[in-house]
């Protein structure tokens, strides 16, 4: 317990320095600014803004990135409430009741409840990270290569089971990502693999490059398909009366609480993340409500619960990253990319060797949430005006901004072309209903999986049964197999699809 407080004190000491406070603020603001733009999700936002943190010292860069992440999430919910175009899957459910509230002239309370719910969830999640951080790190140190490999398999299976759509296709995307991660030099022998003598590929495909292509460029190309202006239905009334009434607060308080609990749990699970959390929270609220017919017609619980769950999950998903070094979802995978660029290998060692980095980031999460609450409500007017910018002007700006960003990572024109190619691949994937997020996760985990598999088999002298004979590893593999079987069983598949479909109707 004393540890906990000294750790948090250390963290706040780092996060409260003026420069880090400023970075946190800038990150949250810029994240919201980009996240608000319709059609740009959290992953795309973080990928786009990654380059602007390169020049900073590691602590500052991570604090700013974390700020960008929450800002993007918050911006996404603003868009779904005001325009009914969810920037990302996680805000789809917020749009259901949020947009209805906005149409009834209650956009203010909807936005306020979303912010308050997110803030509350953020506070709980921050404490949770601080509490679970140290013990999980100890556990992680007991892990050998076999356990690590099994854990990553479990994480990937989780990602598949909890995702939307076909299990088979999601697994295929993960393996595609694993395969892409093999491009470059072999860590052990230094042999060049599938690089075709292109010097820029010798170090492997850049993570930011692929992410920007798959999520930035591909999204833009896809949005151009639909004829941008037609389906934008912006709430035209002025947003007035921000403050929710006493009844609103009373109605949403239990929903926020339930959403936070559900989101925190789902966030820790590898592969979980924000999307499933908000869907699950919405479904739960609807199930236990005495008036389920109100949902979809502007029920405030329908905004409060998913937004809290969303934010809680977004933060607790840092737990597996910081303690085990395993990114549980695509955004965390981007965080790994950013850390690697700064020469930090996330995992238990970081927690012990660079405590000021980890705890500073955790403390800044809470500060970032507070800032979002304070700055965003007054700024709603600006966000609304931003939403009026027509897409025909916005998309070339995003293309150029992304292009400069990618170029600035390595000063390599080839990277820009590669990102463009991945944009086209991403467009093709969307057209064939393949989800790009598992691909990104596979790409980050690829080298880690290979290394641990190699080491595990070297230690066991080539005996593959090592994954089943070591108890911890066997348990992890068993859970993974169990989940996979469950996901393929028709009865559960139906249930799983129900969660998504129900919220869509």
């Amino acid at each position: 317990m004393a540890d906990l407080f000294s750790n948090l004190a250390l963290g706040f000491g780092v996060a409260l320095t003026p420069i880090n406070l400023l970075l946190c603020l800038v990150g949250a603001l810029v994240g919201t600014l980009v996240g608000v733009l319709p059609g740009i999700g959290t992953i795309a936002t973080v990928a786009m803004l990654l380059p602007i943190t390169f020049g900073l010292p590691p602590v500052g860069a991570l604090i700013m990135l974390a700020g960008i992440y929450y800002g993007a999430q918050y911006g996404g919910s603003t868009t779904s409430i005001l325009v009914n175009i969810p920037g990302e899957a996680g805000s789809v459910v917020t749009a259901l009741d949020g947009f209805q509230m906005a149409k009834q002239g209650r956009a203010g309370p909807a936005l306020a409840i979303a912010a308050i719910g997110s803030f509350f969830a953020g506070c709980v999640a921050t404490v949770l990270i601080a509490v679970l951080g140290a013990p999980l790190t100890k556990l992680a140190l007991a892990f050998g290569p076999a356990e690590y490999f099994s854990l990553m398999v479990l994480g990937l299976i989780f990602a598949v089971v909890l995702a939307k759509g076909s299990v088979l296709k999601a697994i295929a995307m993960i393996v595609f990502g694993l395969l892409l991660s093999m491009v470059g030099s072999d860590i052990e022998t230094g042999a060049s693999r599938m690089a075709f003598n292109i010097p820029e590929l010798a170090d492997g495909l850049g993570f930011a490059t692929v992410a920007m292509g798959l999520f930035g460029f591909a999204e833009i190309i896809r949005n151009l398909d639909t004829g941008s202006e037609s389906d934008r239905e912006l709430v035209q009334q002025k947003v007035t009366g921000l403050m929710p009434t006493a009844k609103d607060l009373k109605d949403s308080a239990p929903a926020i609480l339930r959403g936070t609990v559900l989101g925190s749990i789902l966030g820790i699970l590898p592969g979980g993340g924000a999307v499933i959390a908000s869907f699950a929270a919405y479904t739960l609220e609807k199930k236990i409500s005495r008036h389920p017919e109100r949902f979809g017609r502007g029920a405030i619980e329908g905004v409060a619960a998913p937004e809290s769950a969303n934010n809680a999950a977004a933060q607790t998903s840092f737990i597996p990253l910081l303690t085990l070094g395993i990114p549980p979802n695509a955004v965390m995978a981007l965080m790994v990319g950013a850390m690697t660029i700064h020469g930090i290998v996330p995992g238990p060692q970081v927690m012990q060797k660079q405590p000021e980095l980890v705890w500073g980031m955790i403390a800044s999460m809470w500060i970032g949430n507070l800032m979002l609450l304070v700055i965003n409500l007054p700024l709603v007017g600006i966000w609304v005006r931003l939403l009026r910018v027509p897409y025909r002007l916005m998309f070339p700006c995003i293309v150029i901004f992304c292009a400069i960003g990618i170029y600035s990572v390595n000063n390599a024109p080839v990277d820009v072309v590669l990102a463009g190619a991945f944009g086209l691949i991403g467009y093709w994937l969307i057209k064939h209903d393949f989800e790009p997020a598992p691909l990104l996760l596979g790409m980050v985990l690829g080298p880690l999986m290979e290394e641990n598999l190699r080491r595990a088999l070297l230690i066991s002298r080539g005996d593959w049964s090592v994954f089943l004979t070591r108890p911890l590893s066997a348990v992890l593999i068993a859970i993974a197999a169990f989940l996979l079987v469950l996901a393929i069983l028709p009865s559960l598949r139906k249930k799983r699809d129900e969660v998504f479909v129900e919220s869509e109707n």
Partner: protein
Amino acid sequence: MSDTPSHAPVKSIMPKWVRGPQDFVGGIALIAIALFALWASSDLQGMRGFSFGAGTAPRMFAFLLLGLGIAVTVVGLVTEGAHLAKYHWRGPLFVSLSIISFAVAIRPLGLVVSAFAAFLIAAMGTAETRWKETIIVGACLTLGCSLLFPYALGLPLQLFPRFMIQ
């Protein structure tokens, strides 16, 4: 994230026995990628005793992808599924052209010229573009980026064409 492809009867180029064209084509593409990866990694060393060679893991993943690709293809064959989504050429073409022109121009011509030119090319990606406002916004963006990246973020970007600096 995903486009819901229309189930409306579109003129299909697929033979009748393909019941889910979207998955069928998707699976075949995965198989092609896997085969390509197998070919590309064929020159790498395999297992030496029980230690991995450079080619072991890539080939392992490629074989996995091959299997999954075949599975997706089979699913597309035997189960009723979505039709191929409609592709558009204008957006992808001009966005790609814009990206390529930026990549080609950034080294010799610097940020200002390449960003502005790429902006105009990208703007051709939609029929809705009105040139007057596009040029104004493009100029503003170029100015903003020229201040943001080299000055505010301190990244080593060259602003003007090489021949003008010398």
